[in-house]
């Protein structure tokens, strides 16, 4: 099978969906002219400047105009570059996109088919305002779906699903990227179906995006020490495949959640709470959390490493559930 980068896989997804459906368009900063390895590379040449719409520097307009266009029947893909920049469009994403349909009583079966593309992640010495992974900020807010693909394969299949979804989807990809096999034939990946990245019997670890990569490494290290870790990648947080997680916890009795976002009120707290609600008797140790200990992300690599999850921290957290 071919090997593609995450950007290339997403680029294919956008190209296929834009060919299939003339109501799909992209709006974002710097889409003209095309530059190298990005999800929108080469699209302006094929689809023109109206459908690959280079925007003024206003995340508010990028996200808010996507909401308006969706209400008027199009299927916008709003490219927001970094999740940090999207903080300037939170009223638009959280309140306009997320709450609009409900707030208007689904008036006339109102639909909001929008994809908000956001880059997340640290480990690149970009500092506090270019390194965030604010998954919980969005998951906390009602009405949005949330995709967090790890592999290029998932990125393509989930992005095609996202474009076809009639609801707003926040689509996070890690700025470290990835590369991996992607089939030539068209495929879609449904939302709400977790992938068990590694089967194991001793402890369950839930992780998304680049955290999966780190966790798999930790699992491999622990395997050498006789600890058999199951690694679950939910792929979408909303909807969340909690059943797969709960089933695993019933098997292992231990749970660690790894999250690049800040810990407080984060993904780990939520998954821990849901597992407690559904499988309290199965839990043989408190749910472990590996996340940013509630600090802005510092620039200097040794500091950044101290703050963000690492293989060693994940190993330690898994071990802690076993003692």
């Amino acid at each position, binding site marked *: 099978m071919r090997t593609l980068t995450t950007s290339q896989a997403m680029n294919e997804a956008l190209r296929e969906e834009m060919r299939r459906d003339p109501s799909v368009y992209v709006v974002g900063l710097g889409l003209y002219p095309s530059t190298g390895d990005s999800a929108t590379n080469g699209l302006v040449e094929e689809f023109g400047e109206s459908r690959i719409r280079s925007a003024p520097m206003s995340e508010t307009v990028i996200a*808010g105009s996507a909401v*308006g266009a969706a209400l008027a029947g199009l299927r916008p893909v709003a490219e927001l570059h970094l999740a940090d920049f999207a903080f300037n469009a939170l009223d638009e994403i959280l309140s*306009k996109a997320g709450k609009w349909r409900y707030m*208007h009583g689904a008036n006339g079966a*109102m639909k909001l088919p929008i994809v908000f593309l956001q880059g997340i992640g640290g480990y690149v010495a970009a500092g506090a305002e270019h390194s965030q992974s604010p998954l919980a900020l969005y998951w906390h807010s009602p009405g949005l779906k949330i995709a967090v693909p790890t592999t290029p394969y998932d990125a393509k299949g989930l992005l095609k699903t996202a474009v076809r979804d009639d609801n707003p989807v926040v689509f996070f990809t890690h700025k470290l990227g990835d590369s991996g096999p992607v089939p030539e034939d068209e495929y879609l990946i449904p939302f709400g179906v977790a992938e068990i990245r590694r089967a194991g019997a001793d402890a369950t670890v839930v992780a998304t995006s680049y955290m999966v990569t780190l966790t798999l490494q930790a699992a491999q290290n622990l395997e050498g020490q006789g600890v058999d870790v199951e690694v679950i990648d939910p792929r979408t947080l909303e909807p969340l495949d909690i059943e797969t997680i709960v089933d695993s916890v019933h098997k292992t009795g231990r749970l660690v959640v790894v999250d690049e976002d800040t810990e407080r009120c984060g993904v780990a707290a939520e998954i821990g709470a849901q597992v407690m609600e559904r499988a309290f008797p199965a839990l043989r140790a408190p749910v472990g959390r590996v996340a940013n200990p509630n600090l802005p992300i510092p620039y200097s690599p040794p500091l950044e490493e101290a703050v963000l999850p690492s293989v060693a921290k994940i190993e330690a957290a898994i071990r802690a559930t076993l003692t």
Partner: protein
Amino acid sequence: MKPTPAEQLELYTLMVRSRVFEETAGALVVSGEIPGSWLSGIGQEGTLGAIHQLRPDDYLTYTHRGAYGFIGRGSDPKLLLAELLGKRTGYSRGKGGRHIADLEHGILGKSGTIGGHAPLAVGVATAIQIRGGDQVVMSIFGEGTSNRGTTHSSMNAAAVWGLPVVWVCENNGYMGNVPAPMYTAVMDIADMAVGYDMPGEVVDGNDVLAVHEAAEEAIARARAGQGPSLLELKTYRMRPFGETSTDLRDPAEATAWRAKDPIRRFRSALIESGVLTDGATVAISEAATAEMETARSYARDSSFPAPSDAFEDLYA
């Protein structure tokens, strides 16, 4: 082009219906039947001169004030009042209250954050442009709302993309009880248009025919693909900020403006020009009153949503 006598009558009737609707809604706030509030547009019905000229397939985005957006587009007062009373039969099934959408008439909903609708208007116009066609979007906002970054970024984007947006600023001189010079640097919001290389025009907002004329040009321009423009309607709010708010503005000022009431002014002109008779005037008012009474009964008689309805409508 001056509207025909029939169009003038229609316009006058819309203004009266809008006012009676708002008086009805205001009374229902006072009686507590509307559990939220109502931000009255009484005194600002001159804006109908612009709204009235939209085609059925055009779009309107509105801020927070007045009923004339709905009445002018043809929304059903029954469903409007039912919504304000929180009833299941309302436009937003009781979920919205003042957040009302009437998709059939091109009103796509209301932003709770004031000014939040401006980027949405840009998006609707983007959809028109991508699909092709000559629809337009009219986007109404207050002079206070011009302070928001959304207004600026949206006007800039609409101009850059040559979008069919008609921006209509209702400058009523106040944000709540605060007078405009305390929050806007310019006396005329129309001056802002210079920064977007688009036409900006100041109009007497209480002269519905002047508004009509100015809007005609702006709409034609947008329809012809010549991009956005900005109309500023100078007007005055005859009610407090909200129906339950304290009004701290100078009463003498209010009196002076009451003499310029857009409905009274238009009525005098219509009578003078023979388009309207005294009899017709009364008939229009009575019809509007009867209509709004019927709407009120409908709203009162409708049932509240069931608690379980709260769990619907989140996702499509």
